[in-house]
């Protein structure tokens, strides 16, 4: 499932416009520790976090995540969005908690796998 479709299904608010929306989403990763994200998240994962500062762009670049979803109704700083657009890192926001929105992604991707197998 590509990022554009995932964002629509999850009801995410797009904060960075049309950049890289056709990237394939390979899975999800939930973490608010940047070292953990760098060690364990995988390329193409959608990263769910409560962080809103500039460091999320750097960590996203290192891992090459499909995008970053800021959860719990938090909003990124303006300079974060400017840098994210410069670097091609899609950033989304949602009122949903990390648990809720990541759970939905897990279900969608799992159902997709099941449909592919049948």
């Amino acid at each position: 499932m590509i990022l554009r479709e995932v964002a629509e299904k999850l009801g995410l608010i797009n904060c960075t416009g049309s950049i890289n929306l056709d990237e394939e989403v390979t899975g999800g990763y939930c973490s608010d520790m940047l070292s953990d994200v760098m060690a364990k998240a995988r390329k193409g994962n959608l990263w769910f976090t409560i962080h809103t500062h500039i460091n999320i762009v750097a960590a996203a670049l290192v891992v090459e995540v499909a995008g970053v979803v800021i959860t719990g109704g938090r909003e990124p700083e303006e300079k974060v969005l400017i840098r994210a657009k410069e670097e091609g890192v899609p950033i989304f926001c949602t009122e949903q908690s990390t648990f809720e929105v990541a759970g939905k992604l897990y279900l969608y991707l799992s159902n997709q796998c099941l449909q592919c197998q049948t």
Partner: protein
Amino acid sequence: MKNISQVELEFKIGEKDFDVASKAVSETKSALLGLGLNGEIIRKAMVIILEAVSNVIIHARFGTLKVFTNSQRILIVVEDIGKGIPDIDLALQEGYTTAPDEIKKLGFGSGFGLPNIRQCADKLTIRSRIEVGVELKALVFIDKNNSQATSPEVRQKIGNNLKKEDIEDTEVDYAICKK
């Protein structure tokens, strides 16, 4: 194998300057992608850079990041002026941190920075002088197929074939130089 040119980059790391961390990651990544390096090799270098630069910002007063690349390896050198590391063995333990609470709120200070660096580097040297600073040198090998050198045998072979000036004095894994 594609002829890989040399890359030399340098960044000044100012006090509490997190902007330079993302800038360093972005510019170095672009440079390494331009050399046609394998994605996994680039990822390892980026992890080392972001973790090491963040450590300078969090724990030191200021520092520098230098990245040197040739056909055999990426050499990352991070030096800082600051309080130094009293016990490097302890600092390398997963979960150990001296980061203040305001840093933890930014997602750093989990105590996995140096362990991440050690995991990604094929060779690592950390030297420190108390109340002077820290010097970190990390090597990521580029094998002749420009692919991930996964086996210890391949890593050993590459390490043995590096010229002395390529690895400088990184033979010792880590050392503390007392004041």
